[in-house]
């Protein structure tokens, strides 16, 4: 019943669109209440999950949020490398991706999410590396493995998985994909 009603509304909308404009959908001008408004104060900024919280020191956290990604590498790579070695007691060599401390922190310090537009989108699925971030991706385990696991993910086995492998609610395969709130 409710569904039928919404279909009727959509149909009506589509019909209206043919003649004038579907107000609910598009064409909010004139009368768009936000056009041209300026939001001049930057707040938070995120690319990959957990980067700021894991690698950025307390004194730099606000600065990192307002550093444009194109300049992040120069400002933060060295600091990230120091932090990575601190986590590993100075024993980090390479990780599962074969990246040295300098190379790995070079990637991480430019905090953007790399996304493929031509294939599977995943943080890491064993084959695809950093091609997006799906809701189901266990990004913490990926991060723990790359930070603590050494060249073949076998180092520090007590630290390379938190053993929470999925969300507390299932996701939907359809828009808007996320689960209803608790």
């Amino acid at each position: 019943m409710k569904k039928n009603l919404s279909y009727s509304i959509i149909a009506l909308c589509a019909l209206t669109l043919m003649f004038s404009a579907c107000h609910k959908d598009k064409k909010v001008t004139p009368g768009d209440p936000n056009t041209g408004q300026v939001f001049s104060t930057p707040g938070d900024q995120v690319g990959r999950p957990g980067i700021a919280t894991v690698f950025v020191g307390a004194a730099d956290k606000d600065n990192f949020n307002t550093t444009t990604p194109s300049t992040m590498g120069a400002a933060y790579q060295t600091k990230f490398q120091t932090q990575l070695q601190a986590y590993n007691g100075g024993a980090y060599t390479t990780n599962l991706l074969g990246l040295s401390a300098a190379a790995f922190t070079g990637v991480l310090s430019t905090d953007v999410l790399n996304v493929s537009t031509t294939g599977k989108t995943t943080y890491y699925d064993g084959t695809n590396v950093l091609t997006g971030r799906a809701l189901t991706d266990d990004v913490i385990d990926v991060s723990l493995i790359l930070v603590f696991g050494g060249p073949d993910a076998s180092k520090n086995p007590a630290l390379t998985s938190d053993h929470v492998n999925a969300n507390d609610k299932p996701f939907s395969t359809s828009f808007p994909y996320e689960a209803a709130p608790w």
Partner: protein
Amino acid sequence: MKKTRLIIASAATALVLGGGILWASDHNDAPNVKGKSTDITDLYVFQGENTANLVFVGNVQGLLTPTATGTAKFDENTMIEFKIDNSGDNVEDLVIQAVYKGGKMYIYGPVKPNATGNTATVVGSASVVVPVTAYGTTAVTNTSSTGIKAFAGPRDDPFFFDLDQFHKITGGTASGFNNPGTDTFAGTNVMSVVVEVPKSMLNSTGKLNVWLQTFSK
């Protein structure tokens, strides 16, 4: 009496959840945004159910208890902006802007921004407008004639992590994770904006760099 107890219980929960976060995803990550409507929890970008589309999820205001979620709101003074670099220089070529006004979320773009970096101006008129879904009701979505879908409202926080055990490890009272672990984010919500756009609108040659930035007026 019962109500008072409930409030105390929620306040205690909020305190436990809100305090001492060392490593979440980006929840409560920095002093200037902590507890504010600009505080991002997570960014997700993935291929849609229709694989010709890309989905952008931007979540803010993390660690909401169910009680807190009932009164949580988007902020008219906050812009939530997805930044998209399609040329590999980590400078945004396109943006998708989400601005809340009068109970609705207005989505602008994907469109070339007026300027890059640490300021944002709403570009043009909205591509799609969607009423914010009220807590406890079915998700309201809307789709533009150009195929852009939008949702805005409270959702279960999709992030999962045994943060408490991690605290014990970094605090020196545990030497590793438990198996099975316990999801510290279980039972908590976020305010979420989900925008799905046809990939053809992103001028991509195969790879994008995406990040999420919030702004206030």
